[in-house]
Every structure is written in C-alpha cells, then in structure tokens.
C-alpha cells in the first residue's frame, strides 16, 4: 500500500496547475491575437499617412526637378528607424528619388514575398539585410493633378515581432508568478481539504489495529464530517459487538466448566455385574445438554439401568438433568419397580415444573440370577436387541414421556415388559442424539445404519461393536456440529 501511495494533495495541486496553464494559454492566445491586430492597424494607418504626406510634399518638388530636396525629405523620413526606405518611382517603376541616392535610376522591385498579415491581407516582404517589412505607397500628384510618380515607404515588420515577443515575455513572467502563487495556494487549499481526510485515515488505522475506543475528531460540516460521524457510529457498534462477544466467550467458558461438572455426574465406573459386561459411550454436543444414564445396584443380583434424555438443550436442560439425577437416586432407593419408579419421577417433575419440560427415559431392572430384564419405555426410543444367533430386533413398549401427563394417565399408558437374556446376547440402549445426528449433506444417521452395524457384527464382543458404532458415527458426521448429546449403553451377557 505504501509504495504506491500518492496523496490526494498532489492530485489537487496537479489539477490546479493544469487549470492555471490552460487559462494562461487561452489568455496568451487571445491577447497576442488582439495586440497583433491593433498593431497592424496602427502601422497601416501610420504607413499610409506617412506615404501620403511624403507624396504631398515631394510632388511639386519633383515637378520642378528639385531632386536634392526630395532626397532630403526622403532621408529625413528614414530617420525614423522603423522606416526602412522611402522612395519615389515613376510610372515604369523606375526610382526617381530614394533616401539612398545610389538607388536612383534603378527599378523598384519589392523583395521576395513572405506572407500576408491577417487583418487586411497586407503583404509582408522579406529582405536579408532589413528583415520583414510592409510596403505602403501613395501617388504623388503635382499641383493636385499631374501624376508624377508613386511614393513607397517600407515599414519594418520587426516592430510587430518585437512587441509580440515582449508580450510573450510578459505573459511568461506573469504565468511563472501565477504558477508559483498557485503552487503555494493549492498547497494550502489542499492541506485544508486533506487534513480531515488525514485525520480520518489515522483514525481508521487505529481502529483497524483494534482500538475501538478511538473517536475520529472531524468537525467539518461536509461529506467528510458525515463520513467521520458514521464511522464513529460504526466503531461504537463494533465495540458493543466485541463486548458482547467477550461476554459470550466468558459464558461459553462457564458452560464448558458446567459441562465438565455435568459429565462428572455420569458414572465413571459401573458396579461389577457378574456374568455381564457394560460399555457406555457419551458424546456431549457443543452446548451442554441433558442426556443422562446411570446403573445402580439395588440388590444382590439386581441392578437398575436408566438412560434418559431431557428435552431441549443448554442450561435449562443441563440443570434439569442434574436435578433429575438427584431425584432418580432418591426415588430408586424408595421403590425400584419400573412402573412405580416412572410414576414417582413423573410426579416429582410435574409438581416442580408446570410446563416446557419432558424427559424420555428407558428404565430397566436387570436380574442377573434369572437373566432377565423388566423394563419400561417412558417415551424413550426403542432399544436394539442383538441375539447370539445374529437376530437384530428393536424392542419397545408403550409409554409416555415423564412430565407430559398426570400420573393417572401415565400409569394407564405405560406398559412394563420382560426380556430374557441368553449368553452372548447384547442390548443396545441409546438416546435420539445418535439416530438424529446430521452429516454435511443434512442427512441423519437413522436407525438403519445402527441396525446394519449390529447385523454385521453380532458375533463380535460388546467392546468391538461399540467401537464400530463410534467409528461409524464419527465418520458419518465428519466435522459437522453435533446438535444433540449422544449417549449409548451396551449390555452384554458374557456367561
């Protein structure tokens, strides 16, 4: 930017100078033309008058052959340096008298023709010795009647040239003075014009470097002033936006901490379950969310398993999840029977929150002695059951999410089912964040992909299956922003 920088000041000065030159060229042309015309008129008048005077004076003298007198008069005339010659010729153009006596008797021939003067088309002749001259003639009539000859005088053209030269010289001097003055003037004028622009540029530079507190001090009541005003306004908006952004960054940091706290609520280690293996996976979305799972031992051979999803995202869902986790732990201790527990949880949620909250939950009681699981789906999506033989099917029972309806209806609408688990059978529980995950093409992961993975890998261990799903979901989403939490629980009977 710097090497090609040309200040507006130079542009203004350049324009000024060009304008001055243009004006002076026009003035010069007009002045020279007028002056030349005036001078030619003057010279013509003078030449004609002198020639006539001489003719009047010499006519009678020539008649009486007073040649000397005539020569004297002619000589007298040429004392004026602008008059090159004065002579009298007869009808045959023979010189009768001349200011220089030696030419008497010779033929009068004007020198080679040079050019016409523009006013009356007066011819200008040229002679090596004398330079350009104009010839004027007047017929000398003796006693007013007898045509005795013609008087010729030559007036030097150099007078005109010299005067024009002088005019040129004067104009050049005036032009030079005008140029100097206009340089000085335009320097100051451009300085006044560019000063606020300079201030504006400096201000913009400072603001560009990040100083959003800076105010451009331009008080001009013109376009530059308006520009500065709006620029200051824009900076103010930018400053406010940045403040907002900083606040948001702070909130984001706090949310990250909140998310860590939230993750800590999820069980890190599961209680050792005889003959069973439990594998979990949790991938929170960018924002904090509300997926929650837990496994609690409630008897020698009995374990309760919960996976739930609090509707919504952000702080409300996260706080709700924390609270729900607390309520769940308390209520499980009171009564872990699936239907009763779901009703108790519903009661708690409804009595605390009247609106905008619902929680979908899978809740099951695993009996490791009888190898069966009693479960309810409180509005939660189905689970996938993968038998040792490779049958993959979804298991679901009728239910209503927690927080939507009163216990009376909930109880009626909730079905409890039992599933027997053989050695090698696997149960995959998950939240809808998994099947609703989006990729770049805006497609969702869908149940089918999950089903296909299980169908292919049914003989593999729970760990391997879980890794395959994790790989598949990461590959599917690539770097698409994760909208919802993903939680998975895989229960595998190993013996």
């Amino acid at each position, binding site marked *: 930017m710097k090497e090609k920088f040309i200040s507006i000041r130079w542009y203004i000065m350049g324009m000024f100078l060009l304008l001055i030159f243009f004006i002076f060229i026009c003035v010069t042309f007009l002045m020279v033309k007028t002056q030349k015309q005036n001078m030619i008129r003057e010279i013509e008048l003078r030449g004609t008058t002198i020639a006539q005077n001489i003719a009047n004076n010499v006519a009678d003298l020539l008649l009486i052959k007073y040649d000397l007198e005539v020569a004297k008069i002619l000589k007298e005339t040429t004392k004026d340096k602008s008059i090159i010659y004065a002579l009298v010729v007869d009808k045959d153009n023979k010189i009768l008298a001349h200011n220089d006596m030696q030419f008497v008797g010779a033929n009068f021939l004007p020198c080679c023709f040079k050019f016409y003067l523009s006013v009356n088309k007066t011819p200008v002749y040229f002679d090596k010795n004398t330079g350009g001259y104009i010839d004027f003639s007047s017929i000398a009539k003796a006693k007013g009647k007898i045509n005795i000859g013609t008087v010729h005088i030559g007036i030097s053209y150099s007078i005109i040239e010299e005067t024009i030269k002088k005019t040129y010289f004067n104009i050049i001097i005036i032009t030079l003075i005008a140029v100097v003055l206009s340089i000085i003037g335009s320097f100051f004028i451009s300085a006044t014009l560019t000063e606020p622009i300079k201030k504006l540029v400096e201000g913009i530079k400072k603001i560009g470097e990040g100083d959003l507190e800076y105010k451009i001090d331009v008080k001009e009541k013109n376009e530059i002033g308006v520009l500065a005003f709006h620029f200051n306004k824009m900076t103010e908006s930018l400053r406010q936006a940045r403040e907002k952004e900083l606040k948001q960054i702070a909130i984001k940091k706090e949310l990250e901490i909140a998310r860590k706290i939230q993750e800590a609520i999820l069980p890190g280690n599961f209680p050792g379950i005889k003959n069973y293996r439990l594998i979990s996976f949790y991938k929170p979305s960018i924002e904090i969310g509300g997926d929650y799972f837990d496994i609690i031992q409630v008897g020698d051979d009995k374990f309760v398993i919960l996976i739930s999803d609090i509707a*919504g995202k952000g702080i409300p869902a996260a706080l709700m999840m924390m609270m729900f986790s607390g309520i769940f732990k308390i209520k499980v201790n009171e009564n872990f029977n699936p239907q009763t527990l779901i009703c108790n949880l519903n009661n708690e949620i409804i009595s605390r929150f009247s609106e905008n909250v*619902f929680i979908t939950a899978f809740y099951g009681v695993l009996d490791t002695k009888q190898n069966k699981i009693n479960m309810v789906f409180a509005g939660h999506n189905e689970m996938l059951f993968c038998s040792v033989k490779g049958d993959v099917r979804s298991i679901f029972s009728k239910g209503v999410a927690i927080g939507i309806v009163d216990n009376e209806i909930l109880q009626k609408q909730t079905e409890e089912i039992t599933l027997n688990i053989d050695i090698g059978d696997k149960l995959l529980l998950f939240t809808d964040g998994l099947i609703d995950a989006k990729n770049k093409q805006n497609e969702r992961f869908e149940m089918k992909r999950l089903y296909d993975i299980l169908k292919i890998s049914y003989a593999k261990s729970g760990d391997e299956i879980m890794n395959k799903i994790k790989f598949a979901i990461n590959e599917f989403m690539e770097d698409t922003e994760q909208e919802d939490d993903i939680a998975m629980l895989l229960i595998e009977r190993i013996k």
Partner: protein
Amino acid sequence: MFELKSYEKNGFIIVELSGELDSSSVPEFLSKLKKIWECKAKKIILDMKNMEFISSSGWSAIIEECKKLRAASGDMKIACLNKKMKRIFDVVGINVLIKYYESIEDATKD
C-alpha cells in the same frame, strides 16, 4: 429453514409448519404461534405435511403451547405427520396429550 403460515377454516386456525423445528427455530415458532392465538381463535390445528424434522425441543415447545392453549380454554390438534415423526409422536406419548388426524378435513370435522 423453518416456516410458519396460517389460515382459517371452519372456525379453526390451521397453522402450516414447514422445515425443521429444533432449538434454533423454537423461539420463532413460539412467538409466531403466540401472535396467532392472541388475536385469533384459540382452536389451532398444526398442519405438519411439509415438516421434515421435530427435535425434542420442538416437541416440548408444542406440548407447552398445547398446555397454555387449554388453560386459556382453547385447543390444539395435530395433522399430517410423516411416518417418522408420527412414530416419535407415539413413542414419546404425545398422542396421549394431543389428538392426531390423518388430514386437515378430519381434524376440522371432529
């Protein structure tokens, strides 16, 4: 892209929803729906035939609005859900709370 249009039919306000209703479009849904039932009738049918996806936040917003409407002696019905959304509607148990119809005609007749 979420959009909401509404028109009147047989004393019901038919609210045509299209696009995706998730946490990003819920505020728009709530404010527009509120405007509708504040100045028009309180009997609303949500026409879902152009809807592609409703997240849990979306469903919870619908439930919230339904509860508010009923408290203000209005009502809400849902019509024309696609297969996938109908499944979620049933799975979550929203069918227990809000009546569902296969077409707008059925919904306005009932």
